C-alpha cells in the first residue's frame, strides 16, 4: 500500500458546473497529474449512481486517495467521506475541490479561463491528497442529562418531553416561578385559552416529574466542557450549584420593547399590549375608544425586522375588548397585516366581522398621538383621519433578551445582528447551534407564537436526545498536535482559541499547551498564531498546504 493511487471525480452538477466549464476536459486533465490512476466525470457525483461509481472505483483501481471536484465541503464533505469509509478507505484520505462556488458560479462568462482555474484547483487538490494521512475519530461518552435554560413554555415543553423519555433534566429559570412570558399574558390566540391555566398545567407536570429538577431564581453562571460532558455552575441566590450535563437547550425567550419616548407612551393612556393584557386580566379596562398602532419600534431603520406575533396579538386584544364592551370602538393602524397560515387569517376575518376598523398607514406618514386624539393618514382612503381615544395601545416588537449576549458568550455560541441566537443553518438546522451539543428553541431564536415555540421545543428535544440516546459521540480528529519541546507555554493559543479547546498547564517540562479534543472545532487559529511553530494542525499540515501552493505555481499543462 505504499504506492499512492489517486482517483479524481469531476462533477457536472447538472449544468451548475457542466454548463460553464469543460468538465470532461477536466477529468482528462486530472488523469495526467502525478499519482492519479483514475479520473472520471459524473452528472451528479453526490447521487446514488455517482457514489456507487466512487465505491466501485476504489475497489477496482485500488485507490487510496479520493478527490472530488464539485461543490462545497460545507454540504457534501460528510457524504463523500462516509462513502470512502464504506469502501474501506480512511475517510480522511478524501480531498474536496470546490469548482462550483469558486469557479463556475463566479466565472460564468469565461469558460476557458474558468476551466484553466479549475485545472489549477484540481492540481492543488491532488497535490495535497497525496500527502493526506489516515486519522481516527475518537468516541466520548455522553452524560444523559440535559440542561434546559429558561422555564417558559418552550423550556417546560422541552424538559417534559426529555424527562418522559427517561432523561434527567435540570430546568433553570431566573424568575421565582415557571411560565416566562406567559405569566404576563391574559388569553392566548386563536383559541382564547387562559394563559395562567396553561402555565399551571405545565408547571404541575414539570414539578411532578421525577426526572426534572427545577431551579428557580437561578442563573447559569458558568459552563465549561463540551458535548456530552458539560460542567455547569448555577447561581441560586447566595448558593452555587454544580452539576454535569451532556447537552444544553437554550429556551430563554425574548423581551418586548418598552416604547420609551414613542407616540407619547406613558403607561397609562398610551400603553403596550403587555400592559393592556394586564388591564384586561384585572378587569380594569375603562376605555370606549381604543386606537392600536402596529410596528412601533420595528420595521424601521434601527430594527428592520417584523416581529411576527404583534398582528395576531393586536387582533386578539381588539376582539377581547369588543367582546367585553360591544359598544367600544377599536381602530388598528397597521402597515401590513401579518396573519399567515390557516388559523390567523380566519382570526383577521373574525376581527373585521366584529366591527374593528383597520386603517393602513405608511412609514412615511406615521400616525401622530396628540392630546386626546390620534391623527393618521389613511393610505387607502387617501385622507387624514382624526381618531379621538381613551386609550392608545402600541404594538412593540419582541427584542432579544438583554442577557442573551452574555449567555451566548458563556456557551460560545453566536447571536445575530439583533441579538437573537443564531442557528447552525437557517434552512435545515433551525434548532441546532453549529457547536455540537447545544440547541435553541422559542423566542430566544426569533419571535414565535406559542404553537411555534412548542413545536420548536419538541424539535430541540429531539435533536438533543440524539447524542444522549446513542450514549456517545464521535469527535473529529482534525485537532492540533502540540510539539511539547517547541512549546514555550506563552499561552497565546489559549487566548486565541474561540472554543476554550486549548489551555496551558503545568507539566513536568514546565508550562505547556494542552488540547481538549472534544471542544476543538479544528479552526486552526492556534496553529496560525503560534510564534514557536509548535502547533501542527492535523489534516492541514504545513507540508500539505505548501504542496498546494507549489502546485498552484506550476504552469498549466
Amino acid at each position, binding site marked *: 500500500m505504499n504506492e499512492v493511487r489517486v482517483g479524481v471525480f469531476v462533477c457536472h452538477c447538472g449544468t451548475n458546473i457542466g454548463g460553464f466549464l469543460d468538465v470532461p476536459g477536466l477529468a482528462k486533465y486530472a488523469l495526467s497529474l502525478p499519482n492519479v490512476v483514475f479520473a472520471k466525470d459524473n452528472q451528479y457525483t453526490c447521487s446514488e449512481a455517482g457514489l456507487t461509481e466512487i465505491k466501485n472505483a476504489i475497489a477496482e483501481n485500488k485507490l487510496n486517495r479520493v478527490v472530488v471536484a464539485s461543490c462545497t465541503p460545507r454540504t457534501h464533505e460528510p457524504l463523500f467521506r462516509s462513502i470512502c469509509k464504506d469502501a474501506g478507505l480512511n475517510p480522511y484520505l478524501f480531498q474536496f475541490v470546490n469548482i462550483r462556488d469558486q469557479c463556475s458560479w463566479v466565472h460564468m462568462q469565461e469558460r476557458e479561463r474558468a476551466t484553466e482555474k479549475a485545472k489549477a484547483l484540481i492540481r492543488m487538490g491532488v497535490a495535497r491528497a497525496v500527502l493526506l494521512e489516515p486519522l481516527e475519530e475518537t468516541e466520548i461518552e455522553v452524560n444523559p442529562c440535559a440542561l434546559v435554560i429558561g422555564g417558559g413554555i418552550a423550556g417546560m415543553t422541552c424538559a417534559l418531553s426529555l424527562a418522559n423519555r427517561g432523561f434527567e433534566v435540570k430546568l433553570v429559570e431566573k424568575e421565582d416561578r415557571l411560565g416566562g412570558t406567559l405569566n404576563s399574558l391574559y388569553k392566548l390566540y386563536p383559541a382564547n385559552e387562559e394563559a395562567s391555566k396553561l402555565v399551571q398545567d405545565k408547571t404541575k407536570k414539570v414539578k411532578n416529574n421525577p426526572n426534572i429538577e427545577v431551579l428557580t431564581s437561578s442563573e447559569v453562571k458558568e459552563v465549561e466542557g463540551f458535548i456530552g460532558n458539560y460542567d455547569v455552575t448555577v447561581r441560586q441566590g447566595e448558593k452555587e450549584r454544580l452539576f454535569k450535563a451532556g447537552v444544553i437547550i437554550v429556551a430563554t425567550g425574548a423581551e418586548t420593547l418598552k416604547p420609551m419616548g414613542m407616540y407619547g407612551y406613558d403607561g397609562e393612556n398610551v400603553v403596550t399590549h403587555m400592559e393592556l393584557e394586564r388591564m384586561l386580566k384585572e378587569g380594569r379596562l375603562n376605555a370606549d375608544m381604543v386606537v392600536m398602532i402596529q410596528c412601533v419600534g420595528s420595521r424601521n431603520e434601527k430594527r428592520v425586522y417584523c416581529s411576527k406575533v404583534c398582528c395576531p396579538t393586536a387582533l386578539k386584544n381588539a376582539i377581547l375588548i369588543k367582546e367585553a364592551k360591544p359598544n367600544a370602538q377599536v381602530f388598528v393602524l397597521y402597515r401590513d397585516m401579518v396573519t399567515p397560515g390557516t388559523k390567523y387569517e380566519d382570526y383577521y376575518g373574525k376581527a373585521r366581522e366584529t366591527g374593528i376598523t383597520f386603517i393602513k398607514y405608511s412609514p412615511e406618514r406615521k400616525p401622530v398621538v396628540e392630546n386626546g386624539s390620534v391623527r393618521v393618514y389613511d393610505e387607502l382612503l387617501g385622507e387624514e383621519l382624526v381618531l379621538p381615544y381613551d386609550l392608545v395601545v402600541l404594538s412593540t416588537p419582541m427584542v432579544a433578551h438583554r442577557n442573551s449576549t452574555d449567555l451566548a458568550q458563556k456557551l460560545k455560541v453566536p447571536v445575530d445582528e439583533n441579538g437573537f441566537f443564531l442557528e447552525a*443553518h*437557517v434552512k435545515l438546522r433551525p434548532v441546532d447551534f453549529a457547536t455540537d451539543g447545544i440547541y435553541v428553541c422559542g423566542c430566544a431564536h426569533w419571535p414565535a407564537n406559542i404553537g411555534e415555540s412548542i413545536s420548536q421545543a419538541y424539535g430541540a428535544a429531539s435533536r438533543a436526545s440524539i447524542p444522549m*440516546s446513542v450514549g456517545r459521540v464521535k469527535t473529529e480528529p482534525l485537532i492540533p498536535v502540540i510539539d511539547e519541546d517547541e512549546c514555550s507555554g506563552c499561552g497565546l493559543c489559549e487566548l486565541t482559541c474561540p472554543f476554550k479547546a486549548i489551555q496551558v498547564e503545568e507539566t513536568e517540562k514546565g508550562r505547556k499547551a494542552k488540547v481538549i479534543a472534544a471542544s476543538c472545532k479544528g479552526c486552526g487559529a492556534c496553529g496560525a498564531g503560534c510564534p514557536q511553530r509548535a502547533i501542527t494542525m492535523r489534516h492541514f499540515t504545513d507540508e500539505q498546504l505548501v504542496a498546494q501552493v507549489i502546485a498552484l505555481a506550476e504552469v498549466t499543462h
Partner: protein
Amino acid sequence: MEEKLRAVLVIGGGIAGIQAALDLGDMGIKVHLVEKKPSIGGRMAQLDKTFPTNDCSICILAPKLADCFRHSNITLHTLSEVKEVTGQMGDFSVKLHKYARFVNEEKCVNCGECAAKCPVKVPDEFDMGLRKREVIYPYYLQGVPAVMTIDRENCLYLTRGVCRICEKFCTREAIDFEQKDTDVMLNVGAIIAATGFDPYDPSGIPQYGYKRYRNVILSLECERLMCASGPTGGHLLRPSDNKPAEKIAFVQCVGSRDFKNNRYCSSVCCMHATKEAMLAYEHDHKVKSCIFYMDLRAAGKGFQEYVARGEQEYNISYIRGRVAKITEDHDENPIVWYEETQSSKTNKMTADLAVLATSLMPRKDVKELAKVLGVELDEYNFFKTDPLNPLDTTRPGIFVCGCCREPTDIPESVAQASGAAERAAETVMR
C-alpha cells in the same frame, strides 16, 4: 429496553418526512419511510433556490437524501401507499401497498440506455409538464433511490402488450415486467404524517387565464424554468416563444385569502415571489419584476432584509393591489389589470411573463389517507391540530409535521419534523 422499541412509520418523503426519519434513525429507532413517488425529495427537490439565503435547494437536500438511503435504521418504501392502519398508539398494524417499479432496484445503475430507446414520450410531472420524458425514466436526476421506473399508465407493453425495447437494451437485465404489486405488513408504535402540499390549480380563477395564455405560469413552473437541471437548463424563457422574460409580473394570493377559494394565507408566497424575482435578475440584469401583493408577509428571520435587498438591488417593485384579471396582447404578452390601492386607481401593466403564486393546498388524496389513519382534518383539509399540541393529530400515536398541517416554510417544517420525531419517540420509548 432497546429490544422492546417499536418502529415508527413516516408517511411522505419530502423534507419534513426525511428530517423526521433521520432524527428517529439517529436516536436508534427503526423507521419505515413511505413515499408515493418513485424517489424521495418531495417539493423541496423541485425548488431552484431557497429564501432567504438563496442556497441551491437540491444541493442542500441531496446529502439528506443520501443519508436516508444509507441509514441503517431507515427502510425506504418508494412507490408505496398506506392502505390500512389498525391497532392503537404503541401498536399499530400497517398495510402498505407497494407498486411494481418493473425495474430491479438492485441491478439498475440509472445509466439511461433504456430511456434513450423508449419510443413513448409523456409530460414530465417533476418538471411540471414543461418537458417530455420517456415512459421509463428517472423521477429526477438526483432522485433517491437512483433507479429508473416504468410508468405503468403509459408503457406500451404494460398497456397494449407490445414493445419491450427497454428490456432489449438494458445491459444489466434490470427490466422486470414480471414484477407484481405487493402488500407489506408493518408493525409500528407511532406514525408521522408528512405528506406535504399540492399547488392550487388556478383554472378555478378563469380571469387569470392560466392554461389559456401560454405566458401565465405557476410559481412551481417558474422554479423549474430557473433551475439548472430544469427543462430549459436554467434559462427563464417564456413558454410561447422561448424568448427571455425581461418584464415579469408576480401575482400573489392566487387562490389564497380568497373567499371563493381558500380563505387562508399560504404563508410562503411573499417570500418565494421575492426569491424568484431576485433569481430572474441574477440570471439577467435586464429583468424588471413587479410583485402585486395585498399584505407583505415577511416575518421570518432575515425576511424583511431580504425584501429590502430585492427592492434596492434586484430591480423589484412591490405594488399593493389585487390583480383583477390578466389578458393578453397579440404577441402573447400578458397584460395584468390591477387596482393600485395606494392611489385608488385602476391600472394595467404589460409583461413578458406572469407568475401566479398559487396557494399551498393539502394533497389531493389527503381525505383517503385521513380515513385510513382515522384522523380528523380541519375545514381546509389540513390535518387537524390544536394550537397547544401542534404536532398531535386527533388520534393518539399519530403525529404530523410540515405543509400537510398548515402551509409552512422549510425551516419551520424541519423544526416541526424534529418535533414530530420527538413526539413519536416519546410514544415508542415509553
